[in-house]
Every structure is written in structure tokens, then in C-alpha cells.
């Protein structure tokens, strides 16, 4: 199949089964760049140069459903307060662009939006710090429409280990398992992106509903802690969940991983923290980048991950989570939210069938949300709101 024909076919496919994307950080970008002034950064027009995401490019990319991340930094003085502001931002976007964005809480809402040709809009919270060790707050987020919680972000929480922090709990604590059970009861998806492999395994043990990885790729293809090890991918068929492949170059391309390690070491050698963005630090970083050109990921890099994940987890357990506006760099050909057809075209030339691609883009993600609702309906017949506290289950603060 020629490249042009493949792209045409990809676009045709996306018209029927558009992309359910697992993770997009537009709300955080609107907070940081515009202080939530939605007039100042109006996504009804082309906002390239500022954002990876706007309505015209979502349409061009064939996006039919989006989990908007209501992420907040662990450094926020009150992460719960900041999370509520993020949720408010998404609600305002939905009020503002009703012809393009459809509020969605259920799998049925997803299908309705697909029929209407609107982009189903869901919310996902990124990190257990957003619930402040409080199941009442977790239920509050659910009531506000949040449909997944990533158990951690880059730092551990009191009840779960992150992939990018020092191991402490060794996975989930007793309270962590209670959080998972309460999420099951509510019908909120358990998101295992960002968490340590130990946490992934504990959560798979504890969860009675399918889990998701909202934006993670394969560790066997690129050895980065943010990616999913094969033994975990192998458990997805039994669990029913989906791993939504992410595009972030420093997670998916081994050369980019190595380059990032070297760049961080260079910063430390200059007595700077590797995340420092002061003018001095940026000078040091630019000098490094001049000497060592940054390796560039491509569509093919991401397709390699999908080929592997398909082999290990199976076609019924794959999805897409671009992490747009949550990452500075993107692969060539997947530069912004208009790039999904390029990925599908690449997979078509690799021999993926139309049926395979419909599962990847739409059907698997829609199935998982519906399955979580079914489990919740069952559990609610026998179980009331959990009144557990972290002190009761894990002991007084600090003893962990």
C-alpha cells in the first residue's frame, strides 16, 4: 500500500472509529499559559505555537473522545484545591464549545458523542496527591465527573510507590488497596501509568475491574521506568484492561532515554538540578544540546511499541494516550493532536487490519469504561461507601 493510500484509508477508518485518547494536558497548559483565561487562548482557532491541542487539530487528527487530564503538580500548596480548578477548567471548556465537545461520563455517552460527531470529553486525575488520602475526596472527584485516577505521579504518595521515586511502600499499602476497591465500587478506572511495577502488580491483584495505562509504552522496547514491563502486559488479557501507548520521546526511544540521562548528568556536573529552568541552567542545557543533538523519535518508534505490546498483551488490550501538552517534545509525524492518522497509516503498512485499528482507536477503550460501570453496579448492591482512613489501615502518619 502506498503511503498516500494508507493515509487516506487511515482517515476513512478514523471517521468511523475515532481515537479515544487517554491523556491530554490541555487544562494544565491553559492554567500555566493563560491563567484559565479561555478568551486569551481560544482553542476554537489554530493555536499551534502555543499548544499541541485545539479544536481544528483534534478534528483533523480524528479524535472522538478525550480524557482531559486534571493533573496538578505535587508541588502545589493544596493539590486538591488545584485539582478542583482544573476540573472547573474542563467544565468551562464544555460550556464554551458545545458543538465540538460533549460531556461524557459513561460508555453510552461515548457512543452518543460518536454518533453526533462530537468529541466525548472525560476527565482523568493524575496522581493520588489529588485526593489527599481522603476517600470522601475521591468520591467528590467522581461526582464531578472524573473517570480515572492515576495512582501516583512522579512522586510516591503515602499509599503507593511511583515509578520515578525511591521505593517505600513496595507497591500498594493496605489503604492503597482500599483506594482501588473504592474506585472499583464507584466505577472510576484505576490508571497505572506513572506507578512503580510493584504498584502495577498490587493494583492488578486488588482490582476487580479492568485497569488502564492512560499513557505508557513497552519497557521491553525502551527501558524506562515509565513503561510497562512484559509480565504486567501479560496480565491484561485476564484483567481485561488496556495499555494506551504514549508518544513522549524520552520514554519511547532508547537513544532519547540515554540522551536525557546524559543531559541530566551534565546539569549535575555543573552543580544544577536536572529540572532547573533558570536562565543559567538553560544556557548550560543549550550548550549540551549543541554538542549532542537530541535524538528524534518518529511514528515508526511508536509503532514498534504497539507491535510489541500487541504480541504480549493482545490486540484487545491496546489504546492510545498521546500526552499532548504534557510534554515538551513529540515524535516527528506525531507533532500535535492532528498526527494520529500518520500512526494508523504506519500500522496499516505493517499489516494491521481495519478491525485491529478499530479496537486500538475506539473499541477497547470504550469497552473498558463500560466494564468498570458494570463492576461498579454489582459492587454497589453489596458495598456502601468506604469510611476507611489511612491512619486506621496503615497506622499513624509516618510509620507507613
Amino acid at each position, binding site marked *: 500500500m502506498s503511503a498516500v493510500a494508507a493515509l487516506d484509508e487511515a482517515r476513512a477508518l478514523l471517521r468511523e472509529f475515532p481515537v479515544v485518547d487517554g491523556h491530554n494536558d490541555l487544562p494544565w497548559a491553559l492554567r500555566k499559559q493563560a491563567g484559565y483565561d479561555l478568551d486569551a487562548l481560544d482553542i476554537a482557532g489554530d493555536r499551534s505555537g502555543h499548544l499541541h491541542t485545539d479544536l481544528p487539530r483534534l478534528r483533523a487528527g480524528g479524535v472522538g473522545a478525550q480524557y482531559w487530564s486534571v493533573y496538578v503538580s505535587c508541588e502545589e500548596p*493544596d493539590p486538591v*484545591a488545584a485539582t478542583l480548578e482544573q476540573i*472547573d477548567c474542563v*467544565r*468551562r471548556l464544555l460550556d464554551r464549545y458545545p458543538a465540538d465537545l460533549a460531556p461524557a461520563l459513561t460508555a453510552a455517552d461515548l457512543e452518543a458523542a460518536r454518533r453526533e460527531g462530537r468529541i466525548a470529553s472525560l476527565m482523568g486525575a493524575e496522581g493520588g496527591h489529588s485526593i489527599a488520602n481522603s476517600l470522601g475526596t475521591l468520591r467528590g472527584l467522581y*461526582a*464531578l465527573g472524573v473517570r480515572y485516577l492515576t495512582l501516583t505521579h512522579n512522586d510516591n504518595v503515602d499509599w503507593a510507590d511511583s515509578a520515578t521515586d525511591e521505593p517505600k511502600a513496595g507497591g500498594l499499602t493496605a489503604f492503597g488497596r482500599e483506594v482501588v476497591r473504592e474506585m472499583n465500587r464507584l466505577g472510576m478506572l484505576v490508571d497505572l501509568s506513572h506507578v512503580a511495577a510493584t504498584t502495577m502488580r498490587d493494583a492488578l491483584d486488588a482490582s476487580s475491574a479492568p485497569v488502564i495505562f492512560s499513557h505508557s509504552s513497552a519497557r521491553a522496547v525502551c527501558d524506562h521506568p515509565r513503561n510497562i514491563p512484559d509480565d504486567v502486559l501479560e496480565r491484561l488479557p485476564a484483567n481485561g484492561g488496556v495499555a494506551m501507548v504514549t508518544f513522549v520521546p524520552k520514554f519511547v526511544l532508547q537513544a532519547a532515554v540515554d540522551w536525557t540521562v546524559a543531559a541530566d548528568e551534565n546539569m549535575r556536573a555543573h552543580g544544577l538540578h536536572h529540572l532547573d529552568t533558570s536562565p543559567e541552567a538553560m544556557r548550560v542545557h543549550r550548550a549540551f544540546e549543541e554538542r549532542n543533538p537530541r535524538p528524534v523519535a518518529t511514528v515508526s518508534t511508536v509503532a514498534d511499541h504497539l507491535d510489541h505490546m500487541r504480541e504480549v498483551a493482545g490486540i484487545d488490550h491496546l489504546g492510545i494516550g498521546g500526552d499532548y501538552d504534557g510534554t515538551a517534545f513529540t515524535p516527528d509525524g506525531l507533532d500535535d493532536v492532528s498526527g494520529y492518522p500518520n500512526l494508523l497509516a504506519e500500522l496499516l503498512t505493517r499489516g494491521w487490519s481495519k478491525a485491529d485499528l478499530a479496537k486500538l482507536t475506539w473499541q477497547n477503550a470504550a469497552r473498558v469504561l463500560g466494564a468498570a460501570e458494570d463492576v461498579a453496579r454489582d459492587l454497589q448492591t453489596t458495598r456502601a461507601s468506604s469510611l476507611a482512613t489511612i491512619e486506621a489501615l496503615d497506622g499513624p502518619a509516618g510509620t507507613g
Partner: protein
Amino acid sequence: MADLQDDIPATVEIGADDGLPDDLFGDRRPAGELLERAHALLAEHPVADGYSGLPWALRHLPWYDLELGEAAIDTDVPRLREGHVGALFWSLHLSGETGGERAVTAALEQLDLVRTVVESHPEGLRLVGTAGQVIDARNCGRVAVVPGPAPGAALDDSLGILRVLHALGLRVLTLAGTAWAGESGLTRFGEEVVREMNRLGVLADVSGASPATAARTIALSKTPVLCSRSAARARRPHPANLPDDLLAALGEAKGLCMVPLTAEQTGPAVPDVADHLDHIRDVAGPECVGLSGTYDSGVVHPRDLADTSRYPHLIAELLRRGWSETELSLLTWRNVQRVLRSADFTARATQQRRASHARITELDAAP
């Protein structure tokens, strides 16, 4: 109720000697008969109670059944029925026991508890958000539960959080105790908060606020404001009680002064409470006075008003003092209905206004 016609005194020219004793409105019928009439009146016009501390009180109970009755607290479904309570504002209490708990998290937890408690008592209680839903609940024989007031601290100075709390059901916010509603009145951000509350349909509660804040809020708000727990300063010099000039201003704006049934603010006995109600009716008007039981809030109540079943005793006293059926129906039910309905109407009328993204750091920056 035709029999009530008998109790309305004949009109006479002011100052004219009518030959009747001064205690013209005194009803000398036996107390039992007055109580019976109070029950009959309340069956028609139940109590909309402006303040209950139940969500916080329940937090401390390991187990409770409001449907069957619960001796450990002042409120349960049987006593609400006995007291003819038709609607109840549930206040959200935020101060954490550990001191480390943040206000926003506490507000979410309290709203979650409200939802859980109401859902687990579907025969007795119903969560409502509008005046129409209050009526629906009453028609279905359920006590309507309105979430609020919550302390302004719950907003963490953010209009986004105000909108989210409204989405979770909050309908009354107490302005006092925030950086934007202090001694010198509302700041620019404070005014934006009140405008956004109007847009959403969240009532402003100025109990405990400074006179400047109360006066500015009354002037600014497009819908009547509440005092969720204020009696008359002229009857009892408590800081949360309203002086006559504020009562008059509140009356002018058709706001609502809800008198708490607490010994501290009103006095130790039923006649003391009635004195406050008389005074506020006279100064602000019968359309501007309401009742706040303030039960389950850790305060001492006047004798004979110990729990939510006791409202008929207060109404009997007011009957004795000559309150008309109209006045009593306004006091117990219709004033609150009017204020809720006005908030709904104002919100609908201002829907074309977009959500405000103003931030306190921008509006209240030091000059």
C-alpha cells in the same frame, strides 16, 4: 382555615381608644389548644430550618440510623416529622480535628457525607438544589436537604472552586472569615465572588460578617442575602446579632434574617426567642424573618426547644402573641421559598454572563 378568622383583631384607627386592654393580641386560650393550632399551621406551612450542624455531628458517630431515631443527636426523621420540618439547610463544618486538614478537602468530605447520609435515608430525606425541588420533596413527603452554608474558607479564594462546590450541591456560602470580606467590607475580589454566586445561584450568608461587608453585600447582590444565624442586637448584645440599621437595610432589600434557637444568641426561654422574632418582624418586616434551629451544633438551646421536634412550642408562643397565619407561614416556610426561588431566577437571568476567571492576586493586589 376559616376558624383563624376569629383571631384576627378588628382594625381600629391608630391612637383611637378602642377600650381594649394593651395586651390586645394576647390569646388567653389554654396552652394545649394553641399547641394544637400550631401543629395544624405547621402541617400546612412546615419549617424550613436555616442551619443544622448534623453533617459534622454525624462524623463523630460510629453508627446511626436517622430513620429509626437517634438519641445521640438532636435530629432524626421521627423528630423532624414531629417538629414539622420540611426543609433543612445542612451546614458544612471545615475545621479539621488534626488541624492539618485543608478547608477544600474538608468541604469535599462534608459534601460527600451529606450525599451519603441522604442517599441512605431515601424514605425520609431528599437532596435538593432549587426551590422547585424543595416543593417536589415536600409533595413526596420527604424532608428537603439543602447543602450549606459552608464557610467562605472552603473556596480557597478561587472562583473555580466556588463553581465546583456549586456543582456538588452547595447553595449557601458564609462570607465571614475570608481575606476578601473583612472589616472594611468586600474587596474587589469579594465583589466578584458575590457576582459569581449570583450567576450560579449560591446564596450569600452575611452572618458574622462585618457591618461594612454585610451592607455592601446587601447592596451588590442581585438576589436577597441571608443571615443564617443572627438575632436582634437590640434584644441581646451578641456580636453575631444584627443592629437595627442592618435589620432595616436587610428588610429594605427583602433579605432574610434567620434567628438561631440558641440560648447564647436569643436567651434561655421560648419567650426570649419570640421577643427577637417580634423585634425583627417589626424592624425588617414579616417577609424578612426566618428560623435556624442550629441543632447538632454544640450549642445550648432555650428551654423547651431542645431538639428538632419542638418547633410547635415556639409557634404556639407566637400564636399567643397574635402572629397571623400569614406571618407565621412566611416565618416558617414561605420566606425561605421566596429567597431560594429568587436565587434560581437570578441564576437563570444571568446565564449569558460567562464564568469569571478573575483571581484574587490580580484584583486585590496591593496598590
